[in-house]
């Protein structure tokens, strides 16, 4: 028994969809006989066998996605010798070896042209659609520039030249490649999200006054890349609400007096972590990630809450692990320790990974409300602004209450609007009556 596995089909082709199986179990297969039609993102290919014999089993069916190296069928090669035709199979055209263009990372394009147009004879290799003989002169680029483009996987003909008569420089090629990469990382799930437009060229700011160019380093660059990708990827909705924390304020002040110096303070952020951890148990759809590639939702059975911390290096997000299993005081202590580490640059990468939900509390600075940005691959984030005394109409009269503005941003792909409203309402109610935690959490 020998397996016929899907052979290398050409550069950058790792898998394809089976369109049709061209043989049946029991057939006597000869070498080079077409076995199946495979649709790849480049073209539709007739894949010939490289084994011979009587087909025992066909392991794939039309519609299957198969990868290079995957078993397609098995043959009884004992029968091969007997079954092999006396003469070699029909002399095929001399195989043209892999003339697949060194395919550039596909520029993000609307999915209209993804359908391959033609069946190619595998023996002749996969060909990009034949270029029409063009009257256009080849791209105006020197050999060194063309080489650079090839190395970066850029089609030189796609590059816009900045020089006279559109001449393409090495810088043009590099800039083009950067834009391709940025665009590709901004839309990882093909067709799932709107492709991000390449950055527009910047004007010369120095025309209007003095400027200084500073390199975008470390945390800033990472933040820019990560949040840029999150923004491009996530259809974001923000639900606003406010919680009456007058009661909690009393508890907090009392605790501060009783605990004495050195004890960790009971903070609003710590309470928010505790409440959110409880809320995530009630609303597990907020504790997930989406895998668009696999078309799956990844439900996490653990609750780790990230907390945005403002440092002089920029935004850092340490993570309180298993926040649902910790007491308010434990969370308070851990939070002040992590925040101190974050500000003294001692936070480890490990301490910043694995969050399932994040909280951003800007109340210490001020503000009435803001739209936090979901920290992908999480699906929701709670924003907290500054609590303030407001007149609240209660029991037929206005009473002064300490109101805390809340804003919940969520990934609309994973979470419906009504659930978003329910989640933040639940959180607000527990803020008002923290003893609910002991009932529900």
């Amino acid at each position: 028994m020998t397996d016929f596995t899907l052979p290398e089909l050409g550069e950058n082709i790792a898998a394809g969809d089976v369109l049709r199986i061209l043989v049946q179990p029991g057939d006597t297969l000869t070498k080079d006989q077409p076995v199946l039609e495979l649709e790849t993102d480049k073209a539709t290919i007739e894949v010939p066998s490289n084994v011979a014999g009587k087909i025992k089993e066909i392991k794939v069916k039309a519609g299957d996605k198969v990868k290079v190296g995957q078993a397609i069928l098995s043959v009884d090669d004992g029968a091969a010798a007997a079954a092999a035709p006396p003469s070699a199979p029909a002399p095929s055209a001399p195989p043209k070896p892999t003339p697949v263009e060194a395919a550039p990372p596909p520029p993000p394009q609307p999915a209209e042209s993804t359908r391959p147009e033609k069946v190619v004879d595998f023996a002749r290799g996969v060909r990009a659609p034949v270029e029409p003989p063009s009257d256009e002169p080849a791209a105006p680029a020197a050999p060194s520039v063309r080489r650079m483009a090839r190395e970066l996987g850029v089609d030189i003909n796609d590059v816009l030249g900045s020089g006279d008569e559109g001449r393409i420089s090495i810088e043009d090629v590099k800039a083009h490649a950067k834009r391709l990469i940025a665009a590709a990382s901004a839309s990882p799930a093909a067709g799932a999200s709107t492709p991000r437009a390449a950055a527009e060229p910047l004007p010369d700011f120095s025309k209007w006054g003095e400027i200084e160019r500073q390199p975008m380093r470390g945390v800033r660059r990472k933040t820019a890349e990560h949040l840029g990708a999150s923004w491009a990827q996530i259809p974001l909705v923000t639900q606003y609400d406010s919680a009456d924390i007058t009661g909690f304020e009393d508890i907090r002040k009392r605790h501060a007096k009783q605990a004495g110096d050195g004890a960790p303070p009971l903070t609003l952020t710590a309470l928010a972590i505790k409440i959110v951890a409880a809320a995530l148990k009630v609303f597990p759809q907020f504790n997930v990630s989406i895998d668009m590639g696999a078309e799956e939702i990844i439900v996490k059975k653990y609750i780790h809450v990230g907390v945005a911390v403002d440092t002089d290096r920029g935004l850092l997000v340490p993570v309180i692990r298993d926040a649902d299993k910790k007491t308010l005081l434990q969370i308070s202590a851990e939070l002040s320790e992590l925040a101190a580490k974050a500000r003294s640059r001692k936070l480890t990468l490990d301490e910043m990974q694995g969050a399932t939900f994040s909280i951003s509390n800007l109340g210490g600075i001020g503000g009435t409300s803001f739209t936090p940005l979901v920290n992908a691959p999480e699906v929701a984030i709670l924003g907290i602004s500054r609590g303030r005394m407001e007149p609240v109409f209660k029991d037929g009269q206005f009473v002064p209450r300490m109101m805390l503005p809340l804003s919940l941003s969520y990934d609309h792909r994973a979470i419906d609007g009504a659930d978003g409203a329910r989640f933040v309402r639940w959180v607000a109610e527990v803020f008002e009556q923290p003893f609910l935690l002991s009932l529900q959490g």
Partner: protein
Amino acid sequence: MHFVSSWLQSMIEVQVVVIGAGPGGYAAAFLAADLGLKTALVDPEVNPGGVCVYRGCIPSKALLHVANLLREARHAEAWGVSFGDPRIDLAKLRTFKDNVVKRLTGGTGLLAKSRKVQYLQGRGELVDAHTLKVKLVAGGDETVRFEHAIIATGSLPAIPASLRVNDPRVMDSTTALDLPDVPKSLLVVGGGYIGLELGSVYAALGSAVSVVEMTDGLLPGADRDLVDVLAKTIAKSMKNIWLKTSVTKMAAEAGGIRVTFDGQPEQVFDRVLVAVGRRPNASVPGLDRTKVALDERGFIVHDEQMRTSEPSIFAIGDVAGEPMLAHKASHEGRTAVEVIAGHKAAFDPKAIPAVVFTDPELAWAGLTEAQAQKAGRQVTVAKFPWAASGRALTLDRADGLTKLVVDPSSERILGVGVVGPNAGELIAEGVLAIEMGANVTDLKLTIHPHPTLTETMMESAEVFFGQSTHVYKPKKA
């Protein structure tokens, strides 16, 4: 027994073996070694060089140099300088030519050694897609296990059956370069570059040379306006140039070779040189044990990375396709090696220059006017006649011509053609211009030294704009 057989058959393992050490093969092997790949180079000759160095470009150029000197000396009478009739010592001339070859091949041999390229003097036979058995000239076999092989076996003179006469007086380019004697009469069959170059040598040495060409012009492929200039000069040194004439029969007789033509009365020649073309030499034994495929003309099929249908085997040079030129081969060889070394290289030249080393020389690169016409492509042609070049006049050579084939909308230079002394050197600038995507303005604005023939390039660009200093030809409105 196992011990004995392994002792008799030594085996080496390399990352790259290059089969054929012509200018393509040895360039490939040398680069492979420079890139840190363990490399072997296989060729029956003592040193790397191949047909080009041993029996082609190089020896013919040595002889052409002498031929030009003879012509110049004769020409000098017009300038008031007489040397008298030249006395030609054929043995000494042969030695000069052989020494050029010896020195050059000695150099390549040394370069191979210093790069630690294992040079195997012998002929290879493919056992499979990763094994080459080399029958060494010195006796014995060497088995080479290789990760990649580069086939660079070049080409051979093509001799149609009707022209095959088993007589030493019927020569191919190889035997003609040996200069057996200076025949009183020589027939050159084929008006291509080999026939014209070698025909010129014999004509300068004193033979009455007749050239017979089947098609209606010399040097098929080159633009006619350039060929016309060459043909005019060559007609003076050759006894006959018969176009649209073919040889139907050749027979060896005591008094010479009797040749029957279709279109000319039959004649007897002291010697005949058959130079009708070359054919790829893909006759590597064992090639059929691999997936390497040939096209209908016998060239090895490959992609733009020079990879054949067998993933471990590459093919470069004459055996891999037209044009059969040494400089194309070496670039292909270097491309193949870069691919093997893991670089994303490809052979994508915008122009491969072709040079005919006759007097005058004729060279072109990129798109020819004829190709453009055939493809129905709009081009603008700008020509600068050398009669307007000061330098050409000082050489008493006003017959040259430099032309540019230009894309009218982008004004990019698509092709360059030159005929005149040193055209072969001048063309390099044109190749660079095409590769760089230069436009006519670039060429016009580049300062060229005065007084040189290179100015004809610049002035042809000026002609394009109707602004040439030395040609008054205003642009039509």
